[in-house]
């Protein structure tokens, strides 16, 4: 049994799995149930100005029999009175002193407003604060959320204001709705943040009802852009985590989220530099009980890798994430098809033929009459397409072809020219 405990920006947690600030963390009842189910921590649903919500407010995409590949919402921060939330936060922390309880905050970009809420929340005994500069809808139209989060100066400024009074670690939660997330992460650092978290939801229009021609979700005949999350956003989130993790001007702990649905996703985020993990959509889809497999799977994975602690994974792949200009242009792989497991569906053939480099031949084996798929390795550019479309795992391997040439990257090539 590996040690799943983490220490993140000074905050201790029995395991790296936290529920993200969202509907699952909207009340004491829910958070207590989550802790009972085994979640290491939660980020309480964002507190701020009392707000109003609309109905309906969620939509999802389903594809190929899999439901909720992507999820979107036009919900705002907590619409419950601040006093109720604070009372329940205090009760919850008392009942579960060993679980991490972080509270998410969002107020108008005013110094007094931030001071006031930080003091009120810290007074009930929380483990940390998360500043929400992320929500892309509703609050942004009032100058909050991503309206702040899209301006690095405002992120820095507001973080500073919080740090003036905060006693607990301050995590700045970033919006992905920017051109380069590193700029806001650096601004958070400049403002004194103890950590950053990412990603909040991505601007999206989920779909249009084919019968009524209304956007999804729709409210009395109209829709609005909303925040996108769930499995479909994982690659975007992972990239942002990795970009921040390898940036020496950020150098802060990162709480990663965006599409984490199982222990495998979790391992990837940890390897790419996340020191804690947050989950929203997967819990909304399946309930709190999914954490059981997340912890269990992570545990077995660590044991198999011979690692004593989950902390040993954090950031282990960051160095492998680089720029295109640093990649070795002289490295070559080609596809090789294992005819023993090939089921002759010809999917590799047609995708290569129609959309890649026409280098798979269908050859009749004289003895058996069976058709074999054979890659002309000289023509194969090693694009991976065939191995991606092949339905039988492991049947198409991308194998390295040794070349005589020395490794050389584009950047090396360019510097040679100068």
């Amino acid at each position, binding site marked *: 049994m590996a040690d799943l405990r983490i220490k993140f920006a000074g905050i201790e947690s029995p395991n790296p799995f936290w529920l993200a600030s969202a509907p699952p963390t909207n009340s004491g009842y829910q958070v207590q149930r989550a802790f009972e189910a085994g979640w290491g921590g939660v980020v309480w649903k964002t507190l701020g100005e009392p707000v109003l919500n609309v109905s309906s407010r969620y939509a999802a995409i389903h594809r*190929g*029999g899999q439901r909720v590949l992507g999820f979107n919402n036009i919900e705002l921060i907590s619409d419950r009175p601040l006093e109720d939330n604070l009372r329940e936060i205090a009760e919850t922390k008392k009942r579960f002193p060993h679980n991490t309880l972080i509270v998410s905050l969002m107020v108008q970009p005013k110094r007094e407003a931030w001071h006031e809420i930080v003091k009120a929340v810290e007074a009930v005994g929380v483990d940390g604060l998360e500043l929400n500069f992320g929500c892309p809808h509703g609050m942004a139209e009032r100058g909050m959320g991503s309206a702040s989060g899209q301006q690095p100066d405002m992120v820095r400024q507001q973080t500073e204001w919080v740090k003036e009074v905060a006693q607990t670690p301050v995590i700045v939660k970033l919006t992905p709705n920017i051109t380069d997330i590193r700029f806001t992460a650096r601004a958070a650092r400049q403002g004194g943040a103890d950590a950053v978290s990412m990603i909040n939801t991505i601007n999206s229009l989920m779909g249009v009802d084919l019968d009524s021609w209304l956007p999804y979700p729709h409210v009395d005949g109209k829709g609005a852009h909303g925040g996108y999350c769930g499995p479909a956003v994982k690659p975007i989130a992972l990239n942002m985590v990795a970009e921040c993790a390898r940036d020496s001007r950020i150098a802060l702990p990162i709480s990663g989220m965006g599409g984490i649905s199982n222990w495998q996703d979790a391992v990837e985020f940890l390897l790419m530099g996340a020191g804690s993990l947050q989950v929203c959509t997967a819990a909304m889809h399946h309930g709190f009980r999914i954490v059981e497999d997340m912890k269990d799977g992570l545990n077995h994975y660590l044991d198999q890798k011979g690692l004593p602690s989950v902390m040993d994974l954090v950031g282990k792949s960051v160095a492998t994430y680089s720029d295109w200009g640093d990649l070795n242009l002289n490295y070559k792989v080609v596809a090789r098809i294992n005819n*023993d*497991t*090939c*089921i*002759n*569906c*010809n*999917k590799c*053939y*047609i995708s290569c033929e129609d959309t890649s480099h026409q280098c798979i031949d269908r050859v009749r084996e004289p003895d058996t009459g069976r058709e074999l798929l054979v890659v002309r390795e000289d023509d194969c550019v090693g694009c991976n397409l065939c191995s991606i479309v092949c*339905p*039988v795992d492991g*049947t198409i391997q991308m194998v390295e072809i040794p070349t005589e040439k020395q490794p050389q990257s584009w950047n090396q090539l360019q510097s040679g020219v100068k």
Partner: protein
Amino acid sequence: MSLQDNFKEVVPALKPKEAVDEANRCLFCYDAPCVQACPTGINIPSFIKKITTDNLLGSALTILDSNPLGASCARVCPTSELCEGACVLNGPAASKAIQIGLLQRHATDWAMENTKPNTALFKTADPNGKKIAIVGAGPAGLSAARDLARLGYLVTVYEAKPRAGGLNAYGIVSFRLPEDVVAWEVEQIEALGVQFCFETKIGEDVSAQDLLDNHDSVILAAGMGYVPALNIEGEDLQGVLDAVQFVEDTKTKPLTNHLLGKKVAVIGAGNTAIDAATCSTRLGADNVKILYRRTVAEMTAYEFEYEFAKNDGVEFRWLVAPTRILGENGRVTGLQLIRMELGEPDERGRRRPREVAGSEFTLELDFVIKAIGQTRQTHLIDAFQLQHEHGIPLVESGTYRTSQPNVFAIGDFIFKTGKTDAMVVTAVQQGKDAAVAVHTQLTSQKVQS
């Protein structure tokens, strides 16, 4: 359970989510082996993909374009020998075959339930003024009629019986192929303008010459006849039945209790024997035995048919042949049988059975149902003066043209006993091929098939 309930379709349809889940399993293979294995060449990956996108009309049209009897075939095709048998997912490295037949049924059922009555799903070309006669409204004739109507021909189908469908309407048991499915497929063909002349027997009510004189081409799709005689003593006793006629009665007459509690023996072990046997159990017979002179290995019934019959409680007795039907007061009381053993292989590679001397024994019985094949329509062969071999008209390969110009022959009418029984789906494909051949001949131009 009433008798009627026993004759309701036994295989349940896929539930809507089940269908989509199953369709999503299909790999959408390129140059898919399932398509190659379907005698009518339905673009199976395409129709399945359309189920995944809720394009059920498109899915049904993809099926029916290649196979006008796609709804019937979805129910009666031996899929494990055809499309599903070829599915790449059968392999040890994969999972299990896509349930193509049930998905085909899902899509065509949708079309049946969601199209307006008497409205064709396909369009016809402008009338070209040419007239075609088709003899027999079974799968082969209907398929030829549909494709010729789409090409703009004026098609008249002459049918001896009062309804169209051939064995689909009269021969395949209701609990596998309900009547309304057959009726819908026929309605689709009628909606294209095909004329039907029912209760008109060519060679009796209308002469062959009349037909030839009044049409540009004639397609013979008359199927086969009833079961031939066993040529043993007692065959004319009451209670000796013809399997094909027996099944036909369950489809055309009110179901009665006359088999209730009775002992029945079916002679033969093809799919017709199975159908007769399972009809008997469903009519309430107390004991039903299938008697076959060879072994399970030589039986022509499909594996799934065999399993189905066993599940229905049918007993199988191998290596026995009937020698005499016993009776009292003109009614069957029993059957005398002789044990057989297998000798040298015959021309089909099946070992020939021979009698074991002195091994006779008798069974007490109330009914004996003969299911030892079907007779040939020799009167039509004579009427059209066709060259033939043992009652099987000779046809040109690919075009189905007979020795007479402008006369084509398809379906069970030209079925040569082979490794398998005759099938609806092959009759349908021959109908399509003959339609192309007729069109090619009459216009001297090639059409895309």
